[in-house]
């Protein structure tokens, strides 16, 4: 499985906190983000969106808008060559039947959520495009909608789609839960509610498309998935090799740029007008219409022995998919698999459902269904500990998964689980406790752990590819189709190649995210890029090294296996060296390629029946433990997080600075989820479409997050790294809830944990909410 772990001191580049090549550019505003691009003769595009959550379009007349001077084109569903984007979702057959997730490019006769795109305009200026959108003559007839998953699944509910409102359902049944709970010394019951939240990246959805001189429709776009060039081709009914997507450095993705955003619209408009077109969504548009994180309602019953061993857990999950399927079925699968947490639970029953409603659609967001469940299972863990008078670390230590254990879904854990160490490290980091500064203030500590898969579901047969090669002067080139969402994806690849091929980091150039020119690497999602593309670059680099050393072998008269590559030189055991340019010249003469393409295939498998619990779903998992110290004002309910520590076992930190960035950013985003963020929707109408109403934490609202990097040397990635993109967002909400319980005894079960909810839980308010 894993490579032999090199001792950290033997590594020159990997494992060092080297400054990323993209960091300086971003700091001095030299990075050309998607919206920074412009071409001569470029048009500007705008979208007409539905104001209603559920309505029939009874009139859609674009004549007046199209006739406006300066308007190049107005498009509706009728103008889209193939108006449906479709993805088959594997594994979802049990109750719901085979699932084909479909989405209309532009609404046809019905709109199913507020903000659903109805028509497109391209015009000479943005102002004109917006004026033309307003000039489109559109009339709707409102139809009854459903606005909670409970209502959607009730008999007689209005149907969002013809096939019914139950979008997907997963089930796990392992052991005899009823018997386990009956035999437990303590049974804790809880119901938890999580809210709709937005990715809220700084950079909104944006891009520019043009038809290049080779006739290829070229789209330069902010995306996590350049492979959407295929979707664009489908919609336009052109061959897939006539569409090219160039991915830019992202100003944040967080899953919100995993599904198609502007690229299909841009492709359509460029094709119809023959001119370059730019589309940039406004903040309001992004907050209004972009797919968000699923709100969940979760019911848990957890039984444990008097010694604190968890015996069984009965779990019911219900999610709100909004109006379209997007990735809801898979998000729910993540929730199902992670529902019992990073613990050994002999008997588990999970019933998970997700339903269509006329709310804003939900899809991928950092944590991908592995997030909501943390709030529930870690609150439950804390309640069990409290019921038994046990310490927070102790209960987690005795129940933590260990290598060889099985998850409820039947998957065997094959790598080390560092959970006890992670708990102890964050707990120690918050010593000594802060004394309360006033009589009405209480201080408490909370702990929360999580597990998050890295790498895609094994039955998706994931792969990544990369090309690594030398130029004649000994400078190195890496080509890999990875989109860099800001996590340092590209920069880590450079470190890996530099490490293996013995050149300094400054000698490496990396070309990323171009569907025509870089080997495809798959999506920057699922905490998979370091794991997948890191392995592809590692493999390409190692194979290239072998290829080159076979030539050096003859030149130096020493066996390849005895040669070392460092400092732009090949070293023989006797101290003789060979300059890299000399070796490369010899390769050229002998016809030995100076570059190499490699494909990395992740461990693959076939869909498992979750219910019978028999198999592998994900390649592996990353584990974490977070601890929060909070101060609760027992009269106003105001909660301040005083200190925060977050530990993850990343196997090996390729760039510790990037790892710390992921941990701190994830923890802060998770604190926003825990304490303030909420997209408020009333009967399908979004009430929070600006940053004045959709509140995300600012630097002044969060404590310093102390990152604790643990390197177990076990992971499936390059140099035994694990993915760290998503994991740190999981635990904060539960850590804060547990700390509030520690401080006051009040148990908060609904997110976000606002001051008002805390005041209510403390009995300061009469009414219920």
């Amino acid at each position, binding site marked *: 499985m894993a490579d032999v772990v090199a001792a950290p001191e033997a590594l020159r580049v990997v494992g060092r906190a080297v400054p990323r090549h993209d960091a300086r550019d971003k700091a001095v505003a030299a990075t050309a983000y998607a919206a920074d691009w412009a071409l001569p003769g470029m048009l500007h595009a705008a979208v007409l969106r539905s104001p209603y959550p559920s309505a029939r379009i009874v009139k859609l007349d674009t004549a007046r808008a199209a006739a406006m001077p300066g308007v190049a084109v107005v498009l509706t569903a009728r103008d889209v060559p193939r108006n449906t984007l479709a993805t088959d979702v594997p594994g979802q057959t049990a109750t719901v039947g085979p699932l084909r997730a479909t989405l209309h490019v532009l609404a046809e006769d019905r709109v199913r959520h507020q903000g659903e795109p109805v028509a497109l305009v391209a015009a000479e200026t943005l102002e004109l495009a917006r004026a033309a959108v307003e000039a489109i003559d559109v009339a709707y007839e409102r139809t009854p909608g459903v606005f909670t998953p409970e209502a959607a699944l009730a008999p007689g509910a209005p149907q969002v789609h013809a096939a019914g409102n139950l979008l997907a359902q997963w089930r796990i049944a392992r052991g005899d839960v009823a018997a386990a709970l009956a035999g437990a010394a303590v049974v804790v019951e809880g119901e938890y509610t999580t809210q709709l939240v937005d990715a809220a990246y700084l950079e909104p959805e944006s891009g520019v498309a043009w038809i290049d001189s080779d006739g290829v429709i070229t789209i330069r776009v902010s995306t996590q998935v350049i492979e959407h060039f295929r979707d664009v081709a489908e919609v336009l009914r052109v061959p897939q090799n006539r569409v090219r997507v160039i991915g830019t450095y992202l100003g944040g993705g967080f899953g919100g740029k995993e599904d198609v955003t502007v690229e299909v619209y841009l492709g359509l408009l460029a094709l119809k007008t023959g001119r370059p077109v730019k589309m940039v969504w*406004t903040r*309001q548009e992004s907050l209004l219409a972009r797919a968000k994180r699923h709100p969940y309602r979760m019911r848990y019953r957890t039984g444990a022995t008097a010694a604190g061993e968890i015996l069984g857990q009965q779990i019911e999950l219900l999610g709100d998919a909004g109006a379209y399927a997007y990735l809801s079925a898979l998000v729910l699968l993540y929730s199902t698999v992670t529902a019992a947490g990073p613990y050994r639970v002999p008997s588990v029953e999970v019933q998970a459902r997700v339903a269509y409603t006329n709310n804003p659609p939900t899809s991928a967001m950092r944590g991908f269904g592995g997030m909501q469940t943390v709030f529930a299972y870690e609150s439950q863990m804390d309640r069990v500990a409290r019921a038994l008078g046990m310490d927070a670390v102790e209960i987690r230590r005795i129940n933590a998964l260990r290598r060889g254990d099985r998850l409820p879904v039947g998957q065997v854990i094959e790598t080390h689980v560092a959970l006890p160490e992670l708990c102890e490290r964050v707990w120690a980091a918050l010593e000594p406790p802060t004394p309360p*500064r*006033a009589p*009405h*203030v209480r201080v408490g500590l909370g702990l929360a752990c999580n597990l998050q898969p890295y790498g895609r579901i094994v039955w998706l047969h994931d792969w990544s590819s990369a090309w690594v090669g030398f130029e004649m002067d000994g400078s190195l080139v890496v080509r890999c189709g990875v989109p860099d969402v800001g996590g340092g994806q590209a920069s880590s690849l450079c470190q890996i190649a530099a490490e293996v091929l013995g050149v300094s980091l400054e000698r490496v150039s990396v070309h990323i995210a171009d569907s025509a020119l870089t080997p495809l690497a798959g999506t920057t999602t699922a905490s998979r890029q370091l794991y997948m593309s890191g392995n592809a670059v590692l493999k390409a680099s190692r194979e290239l090294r072998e290829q080159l050393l076979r030539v050096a072998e003859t030149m130096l008269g020493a066996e390849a296996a005895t040669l070392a590559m460092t400092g732009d030189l090949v070293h023989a055991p006797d101290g003789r060296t060979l300059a890299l340019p000399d070796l490369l010249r010899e390769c050229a003469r002998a016809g030995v390629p100076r570059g190499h393409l490699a494909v990395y295939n992740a461990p693959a498998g076939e869909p498992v029946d979750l219910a019978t619990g028999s198999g592998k779903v994900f390649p592996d998992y990353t584990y974490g433990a977070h601890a929060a110290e909070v101060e609760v*004002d027992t*009269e*106003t309910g*105001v909660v301040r997080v005083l200190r925060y520590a977050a530990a993850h076992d990343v196997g090996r930190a390729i760039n510790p600075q990037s790892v710390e960035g992921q941990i701190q950013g994830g923890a802060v985003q998770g604190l926003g989820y825990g304490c*303030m963020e909420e997209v*408020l929707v009333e009967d399908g109408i979004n*009430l*929070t479409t*600006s940053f*004045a*109403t959709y*509140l995300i*934490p*600012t630097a*002044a*609202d969060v404590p310093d997050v102390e990152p604790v990097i643990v390197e177990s040397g076990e992971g499936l990635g390059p140099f035994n790294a694990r993915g760290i993109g998503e994991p740190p967002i999981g635990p904060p909400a539960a850590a804060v809830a547990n700390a509030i319980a520690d401080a006051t005894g009040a148990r908060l079960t609904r997110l976000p944990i*606002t*001051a*008002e909810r805390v*005041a*209510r839980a403390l009995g*300061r*308010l*009469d*009414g219920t*909410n």
Partner: protein
Amino acid sequence: MKPPPFDYEAPTSVEEALALLGRHGEQAKVLAGGQSLMPMLSFRLVRPRIVVDVNDIPALAGIREVDGTLAIGAMTRQRAVEQSALVRRRCPLLADAMPQIGHFQIRNRGTIGGSLAHADPAAELPAVVAALGGRLVVRGPGGERQLAPEEFFVSYLTTTLEPGELLVEVRLPVAPPSTGTAFVEVSRRHGDFALVGVAASVTLDEAGACVGAAVALTGVGPTPVVAAEAAAVLVGGRPDARALEEAGRRAAAAVRPDSDLHASAEYRTHVAGVLTRRALARAVERAQGGGEAVTP
């Protein structure tokens, strides 16, 4: 979004500004620090034909003490007031309130007059002026008017300023000796408008008895709420814990807040009571010469 097109003038004297405002009447908007006006323009909530920028009128900025009052020019930056030793000494309640207005970046541009003229129902400054019974000095075509807070603040974002008029100054009484003050608030995030804010001032005599008290709340109604009944509890006696509790109860009874996205009316009412008690308690401590107390 971007603002709709508008004309722009930057007069250099009050007279010139008044002439422009008189000429354009309702079509004109005054631009002070722009911290509220620019977002309103960008959201197209206001569509003036002309923006009259008063930032180039030096006479409108400055802090002076005259005859027992502190006179603060409308264009005085909030940050300048926050950092003024004169304000801290002579009108400590105003000094207490300043750091709670937005973020320092906002206060570097935002002005005293802009905040008062904007009349946001959750803003700090209207409550300070209401608690202290200050005067708002307004100039227009008909000359100068001096308005009491209850004559100036009408409703949400609404004052009795007429088109063509300019708020030129605010006057606040200098605090008597042995006065302690406090401004406490609860907001969703650091720098956000208050869910509830309380301005309190307490004056003691040499024996420690309360000879004067004032309380005003923000965020609990369309205009600042002066809770006279709450303040009255303290006057005439030595302020003790029972009196402070009672003052809090009365403040909660005096407010009729609305619910909105950020908090329910019930929560705001509850917090109004708690914060009134705390603000008065801290004011008393300070009047007694005590040190810093807790923030909510």
